[in-house]
């Protein structure tokens, strides 16, 4: 999520810089105060008015009071946002592979989808399960990850019993891939009610 926000902000900033560059280049064609001159661009962008507003703001800031405190809050928020974006850019990307075995040199790995398929096939074999949803989330570093299972069952069975059976069914897979299984059993609705 943070990475996506990072990319969006980077794209928007680059777009803004590019547009500003184009505008500056176009308005540098002529000199003095003619139509395509830099003073005209400044007038279009209302820079003189902005300067006045900024002067006013800075004088309020020097005087202390609510404006100064609002500025402190804004600065702190900007720092926090910057740190968050930095974390999004620098945090290691989540591995798309679940590593089964890594002996220093070679490794045996599988993508999340086939593992979820295997887990789903194991869950469906449990008596009473009418439908299932499985998701695999590899760890950011190292091997293993999380295996999240939603198992739907008929009304005749209890959820704790289904959770126990499903956990036992996926245990060989979870152990082999160092996956921490989390099973959530619930009564099925609609088609998921019927076995």
């Amino acid at each position, binding site marked *: 999520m943070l990475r996506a926000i990072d990319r969006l902000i980077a794209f928007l900033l680059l777009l803004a810089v590019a547009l500003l560059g184009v505008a500056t280049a176009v308005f540098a064609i002529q000199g003095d105060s003619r139509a395509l001159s830099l003073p005209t661009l400044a007038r279009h962008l209302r820079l003189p008015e902005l300067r006045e507003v900024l002067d006013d703001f800075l004088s309020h800031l020097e005087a202390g009071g609510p404006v100064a405190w609002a500025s402190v809050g804004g600065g702190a928020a900007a720092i926090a946002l910057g740190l968050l974006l930095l974390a999004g850019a620098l945090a290691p990307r989540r591995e798309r592979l679940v590593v*089964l075995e890594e002996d220093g040199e070679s490794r045996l790995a*599988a993508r999340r989808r086939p593992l979820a398929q295997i887990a789903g096939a194991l869950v469906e074999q449990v008596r009473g399960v009418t439908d299932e949803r499985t998701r695999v989330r590899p760890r950011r570093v190292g091997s293993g990850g999380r295996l999240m299972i939603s198992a739907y069952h008929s009304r005749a069975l209890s959820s704790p019993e289904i959770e126990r059976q499903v956990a036992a069914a996926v245990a060989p897979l979870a152990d082999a891939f160092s996956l921490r299984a989390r099973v959530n059993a619930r009564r099925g609705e609609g088609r998921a009610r019927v076995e």
Partner: protein
Amino acid sequence: MVEADPTRTAGARLSGRASSERVRLSRLALAQALAVEGVIRADSGPLGTQVTLDGRERLAGVTAAALPEGRYGVTLHLVAQLVPLHELGGRIRARIKRAASLAGIGDALGPVDLVFEDIADSPEGVV
């Protein structure tokens, strides 16, 4: 104007020789992996980038990278049947290692990474 003779430059010689050994290893690893029961096919990935090029031929699902010690690390991207992947991986590695030794390129074979890209019921249909 002086034109460099590409066949006489060290880089070109190295590249040509390394490429052939790399391709031989890739081809051998791919063929051996596909011969193991439980392996359905190799997969070049969603963008088709997991390939080794041998002239005009594309060896899909296998890549080989040169290692500092002069060996090649081979990575295979496979679609397998619903079988225990750990044992399947062991069988594939053993077979590749044996075949590479028999072919006289065992010393060039480095680590063999296996990535199971998908699971399929049968050779015809991917689940």
